[in-house]
């Protein structure tokens, strides 16, 4: 049992304010989610079974970069984790498919095992909490692969659930999964029944919404 609680930011006003610390907006994160979901929906039944997740990851990372990269944010591939980095603010943001986001009871589970690179990037804050001084990225990463210039970078992930829920969160990875979260920022959660969406659907689709409303 961890001695500290996860900071959960759920109220839209607080979320906007917190995202401003990253110099980001809710719409940017939603656009990343939308790209990932559209790509996932586009998987054909003839493709490999992991196509929805793989396509979502590829397009999710692409959208993450196209949404965020500017004067201060740039592409980052430290330890093989495809991300964007802002050394001025001290943040790195990656993309992650998860089973479900924005559920305070059940934290997100990654849809794939987390590798060593991600694990190394997502350890530091925990030890910081206990005041333990550890090596930083600067000590671990080969010099030519270093953007951090010795500064400590905190790594967050845009986590997109299979139901389209999305959060921006800072996890701690241990044993190839998320052991704990330092912070979770809930961006958007759809109200649909996500359990129904877990199986890749092949049945005919007919739940189209035809909205008709009286004008004022």
């Amino acid at each position, binding site marked *: 049992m961890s001695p500290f609680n996860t900071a959960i930011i759920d109220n839209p006003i607080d979320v906007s304010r917190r995202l401003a610390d990253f110099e980001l907006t809710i719409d940017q994160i939603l656009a990343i989610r939308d790209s990932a979901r559209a790509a996932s929906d586009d998987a054909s039944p003839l493709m490999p079974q992991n196509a929805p997740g793989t396509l979502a990851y590829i397009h999710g990372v692409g959208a993450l970069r196209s949404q965020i990269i500017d004067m201060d944010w740039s592409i980052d591939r430290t330890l093989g984790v495809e991300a964007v980095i802002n050394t001025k603010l001290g943040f790195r943001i990656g993309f992650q498919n998860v089973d479900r986001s924005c559920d305070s009871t059940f934290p997100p589970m990654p849809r794939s095992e987390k590798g060593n690179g991600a694990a190394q990037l997502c350890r530091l804050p925990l030890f910081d909490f206990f005041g333990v001084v550890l090596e930083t990225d600067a000590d671990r990463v080969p010099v030519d692969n270093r953007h951090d210039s010795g500064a400590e970078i905190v790594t967050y992930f845009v986590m997109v659930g299979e139901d389209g829920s999305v959060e921006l969160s800072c996890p701690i990875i241990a044993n190839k999964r998320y052991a704990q979260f330092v912070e979770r920022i809930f961006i958007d959660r759809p109200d649909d029944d996500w359990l129904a969406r877990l199986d890749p659907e092949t049945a005919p689709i007919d739940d*189209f919404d035809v909205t*008709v409303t009286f004008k004022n």
Partner: protein
Amino acid sequence: MSVMFCADRLKVARYRRKLTGKQLAALADLTDVTVSKVENGHQPDDFTAQKLAKALNFPIQFFFMDRPEILEPQAVSFRSLKKMKAAERNASLAAGSMGIALFDWINSRFDLPAPDLIDLSREQSRPDVAARLLRQHWGLGDRPVGNILRLFESKGIRVLSLSENTLNVDAYSFWHADNPYIFLNQMKTAERSNFDAAHELGHLVLHFHAQAESLPDEDAERQANNFASAFLMPDADLKSTLSNVYSSSQIIRAKVRWKVSAMALATRLHQLGMLSDWNYRSIIIDLGQRGYRKSEPLGVEREISTLLAKILSALWSKGITKNEIAEELNMPREEIESLLFGLAGPIRSRPNRSDLTLVR
């Protein structure tokens, strides 16, 4: 309400009644010259106007409204143009004007789904790619469409019924004031109607604003057919659910999934190389013998319009019936009936208010 008699409205009404100028003159007990003059903008006296309205069985007020939206033949995708008589074509075009007027009236009272189509004219030579792109745009993946009309209406396509339910007039479609319209022939089997709807969708996105003009008719028709086939029956879905097809009974069992005719499914499978030439030929012959060339035994249920049913029941809940709509538009009631024919479904005896949200 205009104080001027509108010559174009006289034409529209005459076309709807499939009358020549001469026939109208005889019916109205007027001279040919009088009718011709009025149609060319000459203001008739009250007595003449009344005679014309009575002969055409249109409310007199109809002729004293603003100029109607006139559809030009080249703006409309007509199939089997060669089979159509001029009177049928004109009647259909005039029905198009009526349909626009009806939807303008609806639109003035309701917020409707906005059109969400994409211009795929650059993919005219690859209708199958166009179908895939539109499916992607709509987030359908490769799944079959369970309710085609509902999908169309959710994407802002205005679906109406073709009044000229003769075998000579197929479905047709057009863009008007940035809104896509499709008129369906309700006399056909549900499967044919579904395919027609997808065929017209092909025209709307491939031959945007009737760019088909520059194409030979056969090309535009072939493109729209291939589009419909690929849109309704995505190859990935066919290949993942059907394999080793060799008999017509397999086709008849399977066609329900895509809501298409057995013939259309067989043709698509052949196109994709999932049926050999020889198998395809023998299946087509067999289907013909079982009556599948002209009709669709073991057919699917006809789809109805979700949008029109919702609108009618919402109006009904406020005490507005088709009669009132016809009166407000100064149209004969049967014109409204024929535009909605077979689309609106039965109106419930008690209006269901939960279908509608009141926007404050």
